[in-house]
């Protein structure tokens, strides 16, 4: 339990400006790289380095403050609100790409295959999903099936949702062993998911002719699954930090915001995947 009854307000913060510097360096580097400038990759690596230093420094600071009991109940509420609305903004970000998929499949592709557009521009075009458009952009490809690796990945993510809850029960019951084992299992399942997806991408590129450039099917497929995979990585890194802290003896049954935030984020990633499995792979 926190020892302070008052709301903790730090007097200065050095990490935010360092983190901003890292991020903007990384993005400026990426932009330069896209423009074909040779300085791009160097800037990206430098920016990434600064950003990682910031993450380590800021996380350490927060963990130390938390463990020394500087955060009272109200600080915890602010943190929870912050995490909740951050996840909400992430949901909106994914909604854009789900919306894009919906619009493409239900509006823009059918419009290309009907009326004057079809007759005058490309009478031979069959507007059926999956498609790479009347221009056959990216060449012939094979769409990704649902019941192989993707289904296995669904089971993996769903199980990881169970293991993280099991770890939470361990934390609440003061069973440190169960907490750590549960987290190890969750992180392992997370990285297994990413590995399988990498394998799936490799297969798509080398065997199926399916690339990011395979018309609008390839675009939506890789954009949605790619951003999701990126978020799985973020979630797994957050969980790894929580695992590291758990091993060091951090967190108490009544005070473990970092664990909760990580678990929320993990469930969010999980739910997005279910949406992906249904709308990208199944239907």
């Amino acid at each position, binding site marked *: 339990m926190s020892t302070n009854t008052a*709301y903790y307000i730090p*007097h200065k913060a050095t990490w935010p400006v360092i983190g901003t510097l890292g991020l903007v360096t990384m*993005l400026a580097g990426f932009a330069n790289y896209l423009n074909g400038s040779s300085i791009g990759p160097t800037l990206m690596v430098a920016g990434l380095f600064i950003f990682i230093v910031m993450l380590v420094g800021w996380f350490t600071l927060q963990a130390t403050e938390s463990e020394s009991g500087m955060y009272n109940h109200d600080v915890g509420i602010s943190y929870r609100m912050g995490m909740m609305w951050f996840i909400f903004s992430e949901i909106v970000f994914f909604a854009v790409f789900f919306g894009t998929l919906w619009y493409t499949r239900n509006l823009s592709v059918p419009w290309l295959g009907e009326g004057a557009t079809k007759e005058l521009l490309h009478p031979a075009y069959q507007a059926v999903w999956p498609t790479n*458009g009347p221009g056959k952009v990216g060449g012939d490809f094979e769409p990704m099936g649902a019941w192989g690796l993707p289904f296995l990945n669904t089971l993996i993510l769903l199980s990881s949702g169970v293991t993280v809850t099991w770890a939470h029960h361990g934390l609440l019951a003061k069973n440190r062993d169960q907490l750590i084992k549960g987290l190890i299992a969750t992180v392992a399942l997370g990285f297994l998911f990413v590995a399988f997806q990498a394998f799936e991408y490799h297969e798509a590129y080398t065997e199926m002719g399916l690339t990011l450039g395979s018309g*609008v099917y390839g675009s939506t497929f890789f*954009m949605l699954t790619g951003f999701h995979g990126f978020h799985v990585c973020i979630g797994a890194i957050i969980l790894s930090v929580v695992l590291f802290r758990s091993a060091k003896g951090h967190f108490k049954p009544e005070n473990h915001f970092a664990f909760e935030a990580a678990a929320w984020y993990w469930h969010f990633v999980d739910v997005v995947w279910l949406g992906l499995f249904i709308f990208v792979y199944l239907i």
Partner: protein
Amino acid sequence: MSAVIDEHDHHADDHHDHGPAKGLLRWIVTTNHKDIGTLYLLFALAMFFVGGTMAMVIRAELFEPGLQFVDPAFFNSMTTMHALVMVFGAVMPAFVGLANWQIPLMIGAADMALPRMNNMSFWMLVAGVLLLASTLFMEGGAPNSGWTLYPPIVLQPITVGKALPFAVFSVHLLGISSIMGAINIIATIFNMRAPSMKMMDMPLFVWTWLITAFLLIAVMPVFAGAVTMLLTDKFFHTSFFNAAGGGDPVLYEHIFWFFGHPEVYIMILPTFGVASTIIPIFARKPLFGYASMVWATASIAFLSFIVWAHHMFTVGMPIAGELYFMYATMLIAVPTGVKVFNWTATMWKGAMTFETPMLFSIAFVVLFTMGGFTGLMMSIAPSDFQYHDTYFIVAHFHYTLVPASIFILMAAGYFWLPKWTGHMYNEKIGQLHFWLSAISVNILFFPQHFLGLAGMPRRIPDYAVQFADWNMISSIGGFIFGASQLLFLYIVIDTIRGGTGEKVTGEVWENAAQHSLEWTLPSPVPYHTWTTPPTMVPTEHVLDAH
């Protein structure tokens, strides 16, 4: 929450009530809501002049038909960058600055709920604007597609040169900044409010910002997603907006305006909040219809999500779509009308005085209403076919942004500067600034209605001779308006450095302490306020809510 501690409480030998740190580093690492508010406001003021300079370039080029000063591509860069800088660099940050300064003071909170993140959202803003501004010095120049960044034109090499990835990443950073700021505001209002202050006791400025914060979280990621797809279409061979690959450029317009329409309310709702704060004090009456103001704000925010395609009437939508978006858009006039009538009723039979903040606020009510009426004209789909992409729309949205948002930001400056600095501004120069601005802004934008109705397209550096007269008048108005704003710059600096020398009371304005908490504090506001929350909150402003 109870009391507040700070780091220094851990060192027993330290002063308990200390002021700000010394030196430049204070401003870089500060977590104090007043410091960060000041940073936001000064940055916004600087960007107001940067964006304003671009507007002067535009008006100089349009002073006469023919190409005078700049080449057409640079002219288009100016219209694009003027919009982006004013929206994301000036108006939005200025309101976030006001929120930082005022929300904790108004709700009896010691600081923002997440002070470190507050610092980060400011620096992310600076980083985003710097990335955007860097494109001005690049091969091919800044983006010149218009601020909406529509494909396919924004993907053409001639339109953006090397600027596109920088513009895209700038939008990402600005989005992160806005979302962090919005999360902070929501957490502050819900979690840091004085226990004695109920939701329906909150000043309207706090209410409007709460609702705006939800809008920001709900739409900034949408813009980020849209520009991400532009980036991949340009550099990674995707086909989101490419019909040959099965995509559709119109999809971008839908996504953009799903962000873009709430975005314009993000700029106007806090404007309403400030107006609802200022008008009652100078009318010496409680705000008329407090509860209806809250509900009208919420209604406008809700409607903003379901009207986006009225920006796209001419894109080729099914007739059912045109009709739906037309009627839904007209609905917005209802809650907006509620607000305008409430402000008018607040002034009705009030003991009014006309200090500079009140003058700007009254001008806001009148001129914003005009901007609203032209908006209503354009919500009519068949009429919009005539006005679309002409100077009529330019006149419309400038009326809702310049004599509305900008005027209210000026009003807020005059209204709260004495509170923040403890110095009184020069009322004579303030009123001169007001009259010059109010007259010239109409010379600047009113003729643009005529130009638009006569068919002059927007975003062109040259035009037919028939448009010459009104363009020249508009440019003259523009130059006067631009020059007048230097008076505001002078007043801000002068007030910070001592102003008239007149000592201001804590209340500053007559009976202001009955309206809102910040006026119960001394002027200038101490560096730390409300370390113990106030037990009594003023309810004068909500009298008729109960």
